[in-house]
């Protein structure tokens, strides 16, 4: 029994180590021509998980600002940003990743939209969030995978 647990722990440690090794840290991400190419986590995103992150007020909370017809079961879609319907027709995967990572570098320095994978934050960041990005690398990939499903054409 004990051996099993140790083995399992080792396996978990091992897999995080692999994931971390492939993860591009927030200070290493390169936005080139308003795009970021290549997965931040080294893994593919999970669109279903990404959809949940969009809704979750403590994670993406994207619906606070964006209307999205594909999530009709959630009331109260915001109108601060443009609707996300058909967003994958308008932007490439690399461009959307850049918008998520740091919209202020990718698109508009004055944007109200938070930079979800950047440490270039406002002053007086609350202690519990200091030095942390809003989303983890894999979470960005998950949201991205979901956004890529938003096609109208």
């Amino acid at each position, binding site marked *: 029994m004990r051996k099993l647990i140790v083995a399992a722990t080792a396996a978990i440690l091992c897999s995080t180590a692999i994931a971390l090794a492939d993860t591009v840290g927030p200070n290493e991400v390169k936005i080139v021509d308003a795009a970021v190419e290549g997965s931040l986590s080294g893994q593919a995103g999970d669109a279903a998980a990404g959809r949940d992150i969009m809704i979750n007020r403590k994670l993406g909370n994207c619906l606070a600002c964006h209307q999205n017809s594909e999530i009709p079961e959630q009331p109260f879609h915001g109108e601060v940003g443009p609707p996300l319907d058909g967003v994958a027709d*308008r932007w490439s995967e690399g461009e959307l990743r850049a918008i998520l990572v740091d919209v202020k570098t990718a698109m508009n320095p004055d944007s109200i939209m938070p930079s979800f994978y950047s440490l270039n*934050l*406002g*002053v*007086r960041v609350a202690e519990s969030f200091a030095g942390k990005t809003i989303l983890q690398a894999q979470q960005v990939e998950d949201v991205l995978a979901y956004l890529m499903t938003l096609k109208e054409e």
Partner: protein
Amino acid sequence: MINRGGIVAALGLSALMAMIVAPAHADPDNNQLIIDGEVIITDVAAPDDSPLDRIYSGWRFRSPETQSLQMDDFENPGFVAVDDAIESWDTAEGSEGKSCASCHSDPSSLAGLRTTLPKWDEATNKPATMENLINRCRTDRMGAEAWGWEQKEMVNMTALVSLQSRGMPVNVQTDGPMAEWIEKGKDLYYTRVGQLNMSCSNCHEDNYGNQIRSDHLSQGQVNGFPVYRLKWAGLGSIHRRFKGCMENIRATPFKRGSDEFIALEAYVASRGAGLAVETPSVRN
């Protein structure tokens, strides 16, 4: 709410780009605030050097249900606090055996005060808020203990005194020794804070009228304070609201009563010059 999204989508990319350059404002509603037959002005032309054309009370952005609570003093839950404050107005406290009434007779003798606050105070060489002035009376004139900024008795008393100015236009001093404080408040208003990296202006100047999830963004005016918030199930001060907005953007807020919040209060009050005092207003 979903409506505008639909329109934008229909207009296509060029309209969308235009929107990115200049954030659009959905209008506040056209309802009129009438209390006891008296019309309370909820929008006026913006003061000189305002970035806005027209300024609106937060009341204009609330739902009809919330609005109606403020249209009838018997339904307005903020009046429970006012009644409590009337009681403490007449109660002697402290070493001097005095009550507020000993010096000011009736609360109505303080009509107009709210419209000028915060105002320059020679005694402390900085601006004084309503809370500062009330505590000065308690400690220096009554020999009583100072109340805490958000202590119930304090918030109730600021509601009673502010109510005496209901309907009168906000008119804070912005020149002379106040100028430096207004400038400091303005800096704070436009500084991006917190992990979400936003400034007050991002929400209350660029996006008032827009829905941010279930909230309808107002201009963040302070003419209705202290407000009765349904969410708080009670009255709260201006600084409590500032603190809440900063926490929502994952920033470490300044302390209630701090120089930073007093400067911010002075600046935000100046942005609302001309709006009528509405205390105690009702918000969700």
